[in-house]
């Protein structure tokens, strides 16, 4: 299987990339690592008329600590995140994406801009309360991860915008965990639950719970979070909170899991992930 024909350009500046994107119209697409887009193009589920390859655009790589935040360049591949264990949850989640070869090429910016709620990073970005920087014709803006994901494969990134970097609060002092449930290690998540939790002398000072593949966008299990925040981090309280993890969700059934089963998994994985994050 091979992609349909398209035009190709490889600009050397961000300005040129944005210009090419604008000139290319609505069927123009940005190409980062290509590991979300090219598989769709090969199956001819996507057929952009123009690909704007970002590989020569400077300044889109790297991981830096700036005060309380991590700044991650959009073209940083998952494998780099995986090895940067100081990133905490972001690193742990990245390590579960597909397989090593895919992680070498797939990028955090590409994954977030693609907006697939079955992919692993979006829910983590939501609970870490990360922000993305979008650079467009009219300038630069910042969008919170919670506002980035709008629907299945639909994000707040405008047609003329390039997602250039991600700012992730470091959340020092938090424990973290990601429990990804799938049949095979390389698979997409049937359900994934990511957790960050702050343990203050046995009491839950803060907890945030993100759900992967439970809706057309990544979700936050707010009812469960609220049930645990401020409470003693006992096994019983964790279990009680986890029972609320699937509240207000209605994930669609698919080949591997029905709605009911996904909701059940969300509850089980939430309990395990909180426990693990504290461990």
């Amino acid at each position: 299987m091979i992609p349909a024909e398209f035009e190709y350009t490889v600009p050397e500046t961000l300005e040129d990339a944005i210009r090419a994107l604008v000139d290319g119209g609505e069927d123009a697409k940005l190409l980062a690592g290509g590991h979300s887009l090219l598989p769709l193009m090969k199956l001819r589920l996507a057929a952009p008329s123009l690909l704007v390859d970002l590989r020569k655009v400077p300044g889109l790589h790297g991981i830096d600590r700036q005060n309380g935040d991590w700044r991650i360049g959009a073209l940083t591949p998952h494998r780099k995140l995986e090895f940067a264990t100081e990133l905490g949850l972001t690193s742990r989640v990245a390590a579960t994406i597909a397989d090593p070869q895919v992680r070498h090429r797939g990028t955090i910016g590409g994954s977030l801009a693609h907006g697939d709620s079955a992919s692993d990073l979006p829910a983590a970005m939501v609970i870490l309360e990360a922000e993305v920087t979008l650079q467009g014709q009219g300038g630069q803006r910042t969008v919170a991860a919670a506002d980035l994901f709008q629907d299945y494969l639909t994000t707040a990134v405008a047609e003329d915008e390039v997602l250039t970097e991600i700012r992730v609060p470091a959340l020092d002092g938090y424990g973290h965990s990601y429990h990804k449930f799938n049949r095979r290690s390389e698979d997409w998540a049937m359900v994934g639950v990511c957790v960050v939790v702050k343990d203050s002398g046995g009491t839950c000072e803060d907890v945030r719970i993100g759900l992967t593949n439970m809706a057309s966008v990544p979700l936050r299990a707010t009812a469960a979070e609220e049930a645990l925040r401020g409470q003693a981090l006992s096994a019983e309280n964790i279990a009680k909170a986890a029972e609320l993890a699937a509240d207000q969700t209605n994930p669609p059934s698919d080949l591997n899991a029905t709605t009911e089963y996904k909701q059940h998994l969300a509850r089980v994985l939430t309990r395990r992930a909180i426990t693990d994050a504290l461990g």
Partner: protein
Amino acid sequence: MSVTEAPLGANVGSPLRRKEDPPLITGRGRYVDDIKLPGMLWASFVRSPEANAKITAVDTSAAVAREGITAVYVGEDMSDLGGPLPMAWAPPGVQVNNPDHWPLARGAVKHVGDPVAVVIGEDRYAVQDATEDVIVEYESLPAIVDPEAAIAGGPFVHESLGTNKVHEWTLAGGDVEQGFAEADVIVERRVVNHRIAGAPIECRGVIADYRAGSLTLYSATQVPHFVRLFMALLLGLGEDHVRVIAPDVGGGFGQKLQVYGEELLACWASRKLGLPVKWIETRSENMSVAHQGRDQISQVKMGAKRDGTITAFHVKILADFGAYNMILTPLIPSLGAFVMGGCYKIPNVQTDITGVFTNKCPTDAIRGAGRPEATQMIEVTVDQMAHELGMDPLEIRRKNFIPTEDFPAATATGVVYDSGNYHGTLDKLMEHVDVAEFRAEQEQLRTEGVYRGIGFCTWTEICGLAPSRVTGPAGVGVQAGLWESAMVRVHNTGAVTVYTGTSPHGQGLDTAMAQIVADRLGVDPRVVEVIHGDTSMGPEGRNTYGSRSLATGGEAVVKATDKVVAKAKAIVAAELEAAAEDIEVADGRFSVKGSPDKGMALADVAGVAYVGAVPEGMEPGLEETTFYDPENFVFPFGAHACVVDVDAETGKIKVLRYVAVDDCGPAINPMLIDGQIHGGVVHGIGQALYERVHYDDDGQLITGTFVDYALATAAELPSFETDRTETRSPVNSMGVKGVGEAGTIAASAVVTNAVIDALRPLGVEYINMPLSPMRVWNAIHNSEGASPEGGLSS
């Protein structure tokens, strides 16, 4: 660990590293897609998105008009074929409904992926683009997907038949009703053996090159000789003008035991266009149109006395054949029937088979072909029976084993098992598995909420496909003899070339055959070249499937080599003025017994043979040919165990340990045997836990790529423990049996039994595959209301 070299004469039995490997590990293999011919065109197919529809119109004009497109053909363009695609099973006295099946659909499509048109052009990419410009209009018809609904009534896949039934076939021995009357306990289960794919990592591919009246076809096939025969028949060519080459073939697993429409079409188009035509299948195509396997629903009934003696076993199989009969489709369930008593002495056994058409991809042989299904029925039901009787699952097995002293042993159905020692393999298994220790651990873990289970399977199977008198037209009804050939040629220099009629594609036969020949000729196996997979090289052959290549092809090599040895001895005897019976092969030389200094190297013997200085009345040269047709099948057997953990909260299963003790007779190369077992076991574990071809109710294929069709990866599996016993087969001189399918035949039943063992404290007594997390969770969740059939929808 392999070895590179064994002492001369002692290669058989050594784990020699493979002759095949150097090109394959350096990227110098030669698979079909690696071959380019001058002027070569590319083909790409327009395939049906409909499961059942009439084709009302096809407009190819836009596609033909595209740059680089040579031709677009539809079914009606191929009216000059000698006939439809072959189905080669015509059992005496059995009616088999067999509708025409064409390389391109004629007026109707019967499953998703059915080919409607082919685009041929100059470039791999351009032909795929052009397929999108072929406009096909369909009149959709309701599809029938569920085999039980299909056998009960319409809609009919093939309207003209007025039924979806393909055939009925029964194999019975003794009297099962009498056997059930004698039983104290009867266990009945509905055993679902779901549909799986062959999934070789190399998809199919062909290059057809017709020029000057002769056709050369490169095909990723297991069966070049069968393909040649049918290309000749269907294209009206003499077999002498058709050469089929199976170059390096990237796995087959039965999927490439076929004569496919794409092969025929490429040949037909090459003849029509006067240029070579290449087609390389995509994975998406492979998942929707390359034949699939299993897909049986069986009503299984076993009777036993209170002491565990099994008195009767009766299975009624409904086998889903998909939309067409392929070359052996309706025969496949029968292969299971031949061993439906397993390794047990059961006086009354009956298998009733009904084949049914549905609007799905056809099924045919996939690794194990009928025998994994039979083993699942026997071995899971034996476990269920043991539980009903309150017996240990190993005790019931031992009680019913065919006693070692009974071999060769005729079963109730008249099939004669060549040799066996079922207690021996189980004893050996018990050296690796401490069941008492496991049970204690299991008990302890349950108190900690960990559900661990152990499963066993003691199995036998029928393989080494041959003998012709049984498999052939007057026997089971395969329209071919299934003997095997070999030709052994000693060259002037003493180098040796072996031509085998088998067509291995990963099994390591080059190495095994070289070991056999080397010992008999007293040479290094590195100077023995093994040629296969080319119908213009060596004698007619019957190729590789059904774990037959060593037991038939290897034995043919032995016989041809022995003829060469006999001739060489006669030459040496004449040269050295000794008696032929006094010549022995030792230390790489043909020498006179008792006078090791008096002798000749094989090269010297060949020198004499080729200068024609042979004894009076002897022909010059040193090469011999054999056609070998054995007296019986061979029946490998084994005892496997598996330990699994079930995550009771999620239903997810992890295989912790897998121990396989196999007996395929004396090992030619034990390393190759282990390799076959490892791969076969994963095929069976894969079916039990991960793999399933799934169609929705409208006949749309849901598992059309490797994203959704889940082959296990290394990350899901443990390393395996293997061991062997060696019980000779009396059928061939080496005493060998087949091993290619053994692991697959055993593994799905072992895993199922282990999972049920783990789940019993949770109230689950029985569950059918696939043991996906959701199905297992459902079974646990619903256990109070679960039926013994465990027939949960998924």
